[in-house]
């Protein structure tokens, strides 16, 4: 009996640890992560502001697609101009692709002129799993009330080719603009595309 109870509890625990998902319309899971400058950030501290979460692995070709020509940086800048907080999150586990020290990341980010508000380290994958982040990039937009209003791809052209960006529809920008204008977000959930997050 004891064994059974232990087993049952383990199962329940495992279930709750497994895939949660940041579903559009639901409250965004809170997290507390340290950025590359040692500063701590939680989602709850940004209540009252729009927050964009961007899952990142600087070595993934799908991420490079959006950084090499400045697309992601422009998006980060335009979000900031709209008053949104942009948090870039790296969930690469130690030893896996994209896992770098804070110093290395700071160097890389300044070289590629990253404009996000902060670059957060999630090497144990806790925040990534809480959001159900599957790919890099994978984007989430959260409104000032703390509700997820968008989850999915950065745009509608799944490719590694930067020349596709010009003709793509950017879902993140659309979600921010539509919600800020008081409209319904036209595509609140899309299929994200990219490399798998290296948990």
């Amino acid at each position, binding site marked *: 009996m004891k064994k059974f109870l232990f087993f049952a509890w383990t199962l329940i625990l495992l279930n709750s640890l497994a895939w949660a998902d940041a579903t559009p319309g639901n409250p965004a899971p809170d997290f507390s992560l340290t950025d590359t400058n040692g500063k701590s950030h939680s989602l709850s501290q940004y209540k009252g502001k729009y927050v964009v979460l961007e899952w990142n692995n600087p070595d993934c070709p799908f991420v490079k697609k959006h950084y090499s020509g400045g697309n992601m940086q422009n998006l980060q800048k335009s979000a900031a101009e709209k008053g949104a907080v942009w948090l870039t999150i790296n969930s690469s586990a130690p030893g896996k692709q994209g896992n770098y020290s804070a110093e290395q990341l700071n160097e890389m980010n300044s070289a590629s002129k990253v404009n996000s508000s902060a670059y957060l380290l999630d090497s144990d994958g806790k925040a990534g799993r809480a959001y159900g982040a599957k790919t890099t990039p994978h984007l989430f937009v959260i409104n000032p009330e703390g509700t997820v209003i968008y989850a999915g791809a950065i745009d509608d052209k799944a*490719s*590694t080719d930067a020349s596709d960006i010009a003709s793509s529809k950017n879902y993140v920008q659309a979600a921010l603009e539509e919600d800020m204008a008081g409209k319904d977000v036209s595509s609140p959930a*899309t299929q994200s595309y990219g490399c798998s997050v290296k948990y």
Partner: protein
Amino acid sequence: MNQKIICFLLFLTVFIRPLSVLSQPPDDMPPAEAVLVSEVNSIQPGKSFWIGFKLVLQDGWHTYWQNPGDSGLPASIEWELPENLKAGDIEWPYPEKILIPPFVTFGYEGEVLLLVQMTSSNLLAPGSEQLIRARAGWLSCKEICVPGKAELSLRLPVLDSEPILNQTEQANFQNARKRLPQSAPFEVNVYQNRKKLVLRMTEIGPLDFSEAEFFPSEQGFFDYSKPKKIKKIEDGIEIELHILPVLSKPIRQLKGVLVSSGKAYSINSPIKQKTNIFQWLKGDRK
């Protein structure tokens, strides 16, 4: 004594080097090699023939099926063809499940031949040579992903006779065609049961589906990481698919490939909602 040690060290270097080469291909060795191959060595005007886009992957690397699963990207081909040739869509041999915990992707390891049927017009002039050109893009992943790109071409003469078969590739084409989905020789019904989709196959006869695998044609509908459940029912089986909590669009039709015992069957079936007794009483009897 010293000699023995030196011999031993030399012996070690012999073994260590090839090992490190195996585990880590040098940087200039791409994870996949792409070629365009043809099943025929000549074209007969008005006759269709098969072309293949072949990817040969290094050990440990994989590339993707039309639906890559949780991550990844399928290959794409852009054709540049002479006037009298037309290319069909890529026909995808059925994939295998490639597990990258906690994710599940669908793709190929080793070598894959993606098939494309070419149709030629009667106007092709015998004696001429046709240049088939393709710009191909694909993604190879191991732990990491590396996109590949190639401009490939193939020249084939036009002869006013039965096409000459390409002996070196014929078996590969035959094997790839065996992995293409065929129409299902059984009854398929799909219905939704809350957060699950039930794929019910009946009149299956002697077919054994106990190890069957279903690959949906489109991304983003199902949670593949949940354990698969196959249930025997009278005269058939049921496979349960777990619907994801967030869908980018509603599922109205279940499209995909059912693979069992080395054969693939195409599934394309509307989804029936299970009508409950109250709807039935209200006269919503469908």
